[in-house]
């Protein structure tokens, strides 16, 4: 080992506190990066292999009823590779000791149990016996939620007929990686499941012998997807086709893609912050180290070391300082990647998570980190290399100070001598001071971003479920039903108030843009289904025209007053132009709204409704649930209370984890920045501080000079951090916005307060550690050594 290399190791040991602080920051950044990237890669590899193994379809469409013979015609559409026809429907499940209504999607399986597309993956048990009509496969989350095992029984009502079923197997499907009821806002594994049944048995229940009501396709490589959709829609139009859509619009796939997008953004935002902070910390530590070793550098140069050799020497030091953080960071990242993967796979169901960490990801991350660390120290290195050796051996001229602006504007005599020292010192190194402020502000901003997720979820809940959707129970019917159903519903015991709504699948078209969603027709003087504007004021729906939510109007680039083309995908299949009369704020989903009567008139239909919102009396809920389960026309029952709880449950684990990680990281940054700044300030001013001690200043006064500067920087940094935090949240909200949900830019005062408290606490801890050094200053020793 070269002697200079020994020097590096001893230098590192000498500044172990600072190295530790830097290591913490680097570990955080590296771990976050590896965690996010490995989770993205793991999930996408897992997803792709699951899709491939189970032959996930490319095109999906439901229809009313078509003869099986139509399959041949569909297969002839150019670009279609495999066609699978199915019978699908909804069943109500009756589970002992569980009163609340439970719904399941039922999907038919061909007699051999092996569909060509969307094959269930059998987790437990076996395939269905083609000769039995009472066997089902159930999806895994549903089985777990109710503790179902292979061989258990339950009864289900299919198309009004109740029947006993035996669970033959527990399965997963690429179609239901994330299982969510179409009209719900979050998954509910207890109240919504999937059943797979033999096609013949299911067809019998739905009178679909020799017919189908659902088609899935896979496409050949050269297929033109949009042309296939068009052809398919044309073929199915006379069979009540509800509009074909591609995999990208399939709900489970879309939710998963949304999650990928969120992970991708996080993997960009957070590690960037850490790389910046680590580079800054290395910059201040290295510039100080180099300043202190000015003479040693001069000596090395005097003896003929080249600038490059000296640069290389310090570069090695930088690399060695960053190395432990990088190694630990990779290890921590792999561990966190597994934790995050588990959190995801609790909701997104795959046969198993294929944990993936590509070596190139690690190598790139290492290279980026080392490069930015070197960039952070490059300036100091350059300065050290440039200095003529003789110049470097002369003592540094006294630092140049000037009277600060603050002292000039405020009466100078009001400030004590130590305070003046603080102010002048801050002013003397404006760049370093600014960077320290930014560093601490970034810590504060990271904390705000972590709190922001909870705040925005609370806000969504408040707006969506408390102010906008006020019903206790939402009922949806199997198919559009007469308005008379509302009166029947009102007569049920326990119903305090009922309002009908109509939901029609449509395609909105404006200029070149189109979007497939639904229009809700709402009763004229409704109380339970409020539309709100930007300021949470009610939006009224006039008797003509349509209200779009703001995100949809942006997607379509349409303004209030413009005409939007509405293509109904149900019933008459009319295409109409409707004026947009207002926009409404909605955080979840993308919808249009019309007056119920106006909607039915537009569709040229009578008083049809597709569901009812109820206010209920809690005394009668059990009986009410039972009645609803027994009503054949009722397809789904969503209890708002559960919807809110599920929304929280699903968010909570991920959010808790994220908040925990973000808090740790924010502490690492705050501690790293403050500790290093304090440590450097102490070492630079050791001589000055000792001199002050010698002439009679107390330890407290000395600490005040040293730590007062940091206190002032921290106090300035916190409001800056609020601002940066707000921007960061605004960026996150913007980056995460999708048609599934928008994150409202809403930050509680409490979040700001917690962020400030965490920063202050970290700063205080690091201040106290440095303060201990002040207390042990050896006055004589310090004054003897020349510096």
């Amino acid at each position, binding site marked *: 080992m*070269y*002697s*200079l290399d*020994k*020097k590096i190791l*001893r*230098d590192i040991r*000498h500044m172990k506190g600072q190295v530790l602080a830097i290591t913490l920051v680097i570990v955080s950044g590296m771990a976050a990066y590896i965690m996010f990237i490995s989770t993205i890669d793991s999930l996408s590899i897992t997803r792709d292999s699951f899709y491939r193994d189970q032959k996930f379809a490319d095109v999906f469409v439901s229809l009313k009823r078509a003869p099986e013979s139509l399959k041949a015609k569909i297969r002839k559409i150019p670009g279609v590779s495999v066609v699978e026809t199915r019978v699908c429907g909804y069943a109500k499940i009756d589970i002992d000791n569980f009163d609340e209504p439970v719904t399941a999607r039922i999907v038919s399986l061909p007699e051999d149990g092996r569909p060509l597309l969307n094959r269930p993956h059998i987790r437990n048990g076996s395939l269905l016996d083609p000769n039995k009509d009472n066997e089902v496969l159930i999806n895994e989350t549903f089985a777990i939620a109710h503790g179902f095992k292979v061989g258990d029984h339950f009864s289900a009502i299919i198309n009004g007929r109740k029947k006993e079923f035996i669970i033959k197997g527990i399965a997963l499907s690429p179609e239901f990686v994330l299982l969510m009821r179409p009209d719900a806002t979050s998954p509910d594994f207890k109240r919504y499941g999937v059943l797979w049944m033999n096609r013949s048995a299911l067809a019998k229940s739905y009178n679909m012998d020799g017919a189908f009501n659902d088609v899935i396709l896979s496409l050949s490589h050269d297929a033109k997807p949009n042309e296939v959709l068009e052809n398919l829609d044309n073929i199915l139009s006379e069979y009540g086709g509800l509009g074909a859509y591609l995999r990208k619009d399939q709900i489970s796939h879309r939710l998963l893609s949304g999650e990928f997008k969120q992970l991708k953004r996080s993997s960009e935002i957070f590690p960037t912050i850490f790389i910046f902070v680590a580079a800054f910390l290395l910059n201040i530590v290295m510039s100080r180290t180099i300043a202190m070793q000015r*003479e*040693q550098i*001069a*000596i*090395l*140069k*005097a*003896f*003929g*070391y*080249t*600038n490059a*050799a000296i640069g290389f020497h310090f570069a090695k030091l930088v690399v060695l300082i960053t190395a432990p953080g990088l190694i630990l960071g990779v290890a921590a990242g792999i561990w966190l990647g597994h934790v995050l993967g588990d959190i995801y796979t609790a909701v997104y169901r795959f046969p198993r998570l294929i944990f993936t960490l590509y070596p190139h990801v690690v190598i790139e991350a290492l290279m980026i980190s080392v490069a930015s660390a070197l960039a952070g120290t490059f300036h100091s290195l350059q300065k050290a290399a440039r200095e*003529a*050796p*003789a*110049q470097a*051996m*002369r003592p540094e*001229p*006294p630092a*140049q100070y000037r009277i600060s602006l603050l002292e000039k504007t405020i009466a100078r005599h009001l400030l004590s001598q130590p305070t003046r020292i603080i102010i002048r010192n801050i002013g003397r190194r404006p760049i370093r001071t600014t960077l320290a402020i930014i560093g601490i502000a970034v810590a504060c901003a990271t904390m705000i971003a972590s709190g922001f997720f909870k705040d925005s979820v609370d806000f969504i809940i408040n707006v969506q479920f408390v102010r906008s959707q006020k019903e206790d129970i939402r009922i949806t019917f199997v198919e559009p039903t007469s308005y008379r159903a509302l009166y029947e519903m009102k007569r049920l015991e326990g119903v305090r108030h009922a309002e009908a709504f109509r939901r029609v699948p449509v395609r909105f078209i404006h200029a070149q843009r189109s979007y497939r969603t639904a229009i809700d027709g709402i009763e004229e003087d409704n109380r339970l289904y409020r539309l709100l504007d930007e300021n949470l004021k009610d939006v009224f729906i006039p008797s003509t025209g349509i209200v779009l939510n703001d995100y949809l109007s942006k997607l379509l680039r349409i303004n209030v007053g413009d005409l939007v083309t509405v293509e109904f995908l149900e019933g008459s299949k009319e295409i109409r132009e409707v004026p947009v009369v207002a926009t409404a704020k909605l955080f979840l989903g993308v919808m249009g709204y019309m007056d119920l009567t106006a909607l039915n008139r537009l569709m040229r239909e009578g008083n049809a409704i597709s569901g009812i919102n109820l206010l209920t009396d809690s005394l009668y809920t059990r009986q009410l649930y039972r009645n609803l389960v027994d009503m054949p026309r009722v397809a789904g029952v969503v209890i708002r209370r559960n919807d809110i709880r599920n929304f929280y449950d699903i968010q909570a684990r991920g959010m808790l984890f994220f908040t925990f990680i973000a808090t740790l990281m924010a502490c690492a940054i705050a501690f790293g920045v403050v500790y290093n700044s304090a440590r450097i300030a102490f070492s630079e001013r050791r001589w000055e501080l000792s001199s002050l001690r010698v002439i009679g200043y107390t330890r407290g006064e000395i600490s005040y000079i040293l730590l007062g500067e940091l206190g002032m920087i921290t106090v300035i940094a916190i409001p800056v951090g609020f601002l940066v935090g707000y921007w960061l949240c605004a960026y996150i909200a913007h980056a995460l916005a999708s048609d599934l949900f928008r994150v409202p830019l809403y930050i509680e005062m409490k979040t700001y307060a917690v962020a400030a408290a965490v920063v202050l606490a970290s700063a205080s801890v690091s201040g106290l550690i440095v303060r201990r050094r002040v207390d042990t200053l050896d006055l004589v020793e310090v004054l003897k050594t*020349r510096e």
Partner: protein
Amino acid sequence: MKETVFKVVNLTKIYLMGEVEVHALRGANLEIYAKELVVLLGPSGSGKSTLLNILGGLDTATSGQVYYRKTELTTAGERELTEYRRAHVGFVFQFYNLIPSLTAEENVSVVTEISENPMKPADALKLVGLGERLDHFPAQLSGGEQQRVAIARAIAKNPAVLLCDEPTGALDSETGIVVLDVLDRINRELGTATVIITHNSDIAGMANRVIHLNNGMITEVIENKNKKPPSEFRW
């Protein structure tokens, strides 16, 4: 005919110290020959260190020329100066300037590792009488010992010239004499041309020639007919 190692012509040096302009050298002329021991004598601020630094390639001149043998140092670039220092010059400084995080032997190794034909670090340390203290850190050595490590470091590469800036400036007289004795011995045994800066006129006794500087100019050059060994010095 004496072999000239250094030739200095009309050398001036002006540098800025903070906001103050310092005229360190004002047209100095001199020659230094192979194998001789020269003492540069003068009060502080007379330009001794500046002259030495320029001779050693540590600093650049404002005007004038300096030749090392056939090479003009004043027109040499950073790269040539580094090469020159690496190959030909050994330095000893007033404050030793050892690297605190390295042991005595390692401090010498720092130089031998980049030299073409060096001594073994342990041998160099033996030459200065520190063969027993190889593994001591600078903080564990007395001032005189530290300075001898610095001398060992300077001579370990077998330099053509040894430039010493106040080598005894930070030492008491007894220790200083030990250090000077080492320098004297190196000069005699290895034949290294040695330039010693001092403001202590007693030291001049060990020189072949004494060059007086004052206010940036060479005021007097004295040939020393009867050299005294450092062991006879008292101050």
